[in-house]
């Protein structure tokens, strides 16, 4: 990379301009990644933290996709699933959105109703009819603590404990008993889903067919949260476009740069530079630019994320900081590689007698 380093220093204005573009795109990708993960967590953390490997929904009509909002399980399904070989636990969970109030404060919450002794809720032993466990966010929003009373969907329950950070569909979770759920407006049924813990390879499909249900993995069940699938899909699409744009911009820059220096390439080839040497030199230059630009951009995005982390849903971890940076570098390198391959077609003969 002898010539590449010298070029980077000599044409620093051009490379600084390109580097700035990479920094800005990386900042945008980093912020979007952190925000996507943050919003995703606000949508799904109550589900992803369930100690279960599969979730059972009522079978959607017309073979559609599962939905937490539409799922209603019959007592027969709940009882049937607990007897399926290979299913260690089948715990009913009833999910409903509700309005909670305490004094003058109100908050939209998700009521997660569990059966007695369920492992699904934190501090589950304290949950009983008339006694609920609030997530920290719900308690903060309502300004209550353990021992206080809150109204949930018009029914007053006592706060048995404040625990966890579970969120569902952008609302904090209140863990209640299935008995209380039946007294909530629209809570006429029991469980809306079942949380399964399985061992071995149970024949879930056969049980689904027999019990009129649809079972999916816990990870796949997230698509059943309407707000999550729509929101996450849009954000991931934006992120994908940003990755594609960055690869195209970097490719375009190195296309122009390679054309501009094709005379130098011809001279080096005439002097005995192998095509491999020249490709390595040019690709190395692109990677240096990408690593520097992405590094600065990632640091800025991480700094911004750390600063606003409390105010907006933003996740700052390796998956939102390092992974996007590595993808940016990899895609940028691919874009640059496609551009600089024209080095292979530069004819060294043009260096002889050429007027430069």
């Amino acid at each position: 990379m002898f010539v590449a380093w010298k070029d980077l220093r000599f044409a620093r204005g051009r490379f600084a301009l390109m580097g700035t573009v990479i920094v800005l795109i990386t900042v945008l990708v980093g912020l979007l990644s952190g925000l996507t993960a943050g919003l995703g967590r606000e949508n799904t953390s109550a589900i992803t933290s369930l100690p279960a490997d599969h979730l059972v929904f009522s079978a959607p009509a017309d073979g559609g996709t599962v939905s937490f909002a539409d799922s209603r399980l019959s007592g027969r399904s709940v009882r049937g699933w607990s007897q399926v070989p290979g299913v260690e636990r089948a715990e009913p969970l009833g999910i409903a959105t509700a309005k909670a109030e305490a004094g003058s404060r109100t908050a939209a919450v998700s009521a997660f109703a569990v059966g007695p002794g369920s492992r699904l809720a934190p501090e589950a032993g304290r949950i009983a009819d008339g006694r609920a466990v609030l997530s920290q966010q719900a308690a903060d929003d309502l300004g209550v603590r353990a021992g206080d009373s809150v109204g949930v969907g018009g029914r007053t329950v006592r706060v048995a404990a404040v625990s966890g950070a579970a969120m569902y569909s952008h609302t904090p979770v209140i863990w209640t008993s299935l008995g209380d759920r039946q007294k909530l407006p629209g809570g006429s049924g029991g469980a809306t889903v079942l949380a399964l813990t399985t061992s071995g390879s149970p024949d879930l499909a056969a049980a689904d067919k027999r019990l009129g249900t649809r079972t999916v993995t816990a990870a796949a069940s997230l698509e059943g949260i309407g707000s999550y699938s729509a929101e996450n899909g849009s954000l991931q699409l934006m992120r994908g476009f940003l990755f594609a744009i960055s690869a195209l911009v970097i490719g375009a820059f190195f296309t122009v740069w390679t054309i501009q220096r094709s005379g130098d390439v011809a001279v080096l080839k005439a002097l005995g530079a192998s095509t491999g040497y020249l490709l390595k030199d040019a690709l190395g230059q692109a990677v240096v630019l990408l690593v520097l630009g992405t590094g600065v951009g990632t640091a800025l995005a991480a700094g911004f994320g750390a600063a606003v982390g409390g105010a907006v849903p933003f996740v700052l971890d390796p998956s939102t900081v390092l992974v996007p940076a590595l993808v940016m570098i990899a895609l940028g390198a691919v874009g640059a590689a496609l551009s600089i391959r024209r080095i292979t077609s530069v004819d060294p003969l043009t260096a002889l007698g050429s007027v430069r």
Partner: protein
Amino acid sequence: MSLELTDVTLTYPDGGARLTALDKVSLTVPAGTLTAVIGPSGSGKSSLLAVAATLITPDSGRVVIAGRDTAGLDRGTLTALRRTTIGTVFQQPNLLPSLTAAEQLQVMAHLDGRSPRKARARALELLASVGLADQAGKRPHQLSGGQRQRINIARALMNDPAVLLVDEPTSALDHERGAAVLDLLTTLTHRRATATVLVTHDRSHLDAVDAVAEVTDGRLTGA
């Protein structure tokens, strides 16, 4: 170690026919001698140089560089031959704008897999031999045309080539500077025992060379 071209024929496609650029050209340039190849524009001088530089493979004939027949050599081997055995002085200096005078020479070592840093001493020595010891840190745009051409020559010598191919080195220089460059080439050829081919259309410098070959319509008509 010398350069030998034997019955070299080179044709180019020209519409539906083929244009003969070199027609059974034979030329031997012994080590330590400077042979001028002269002729009018389009006579085949540049084609001869390109064949000798292994940049074009002739239709027929033999090209032997420093004892090595180039026939049948793959592209990688020819590239390595250009790097290690052939020095090329371009008509225009063709210096890389981002490199200083010394780095223009150091890059030749890097192409050959050697450390540019370790090659710096030799680069400075060569710059001194062409009278540019005090210009080592300057970039092409900070140098005069004559200085750039002398760096062009020094660069060609960096890897100690057995064969030196020089393409119209004085075409962009005035008579005085052209004469100085030719003197330099003659001196270096004799001192370093290179087999030097000087392509030129300028007959005013022929007194300084060891032999003259004239090309007309692709044929070597006089030597």
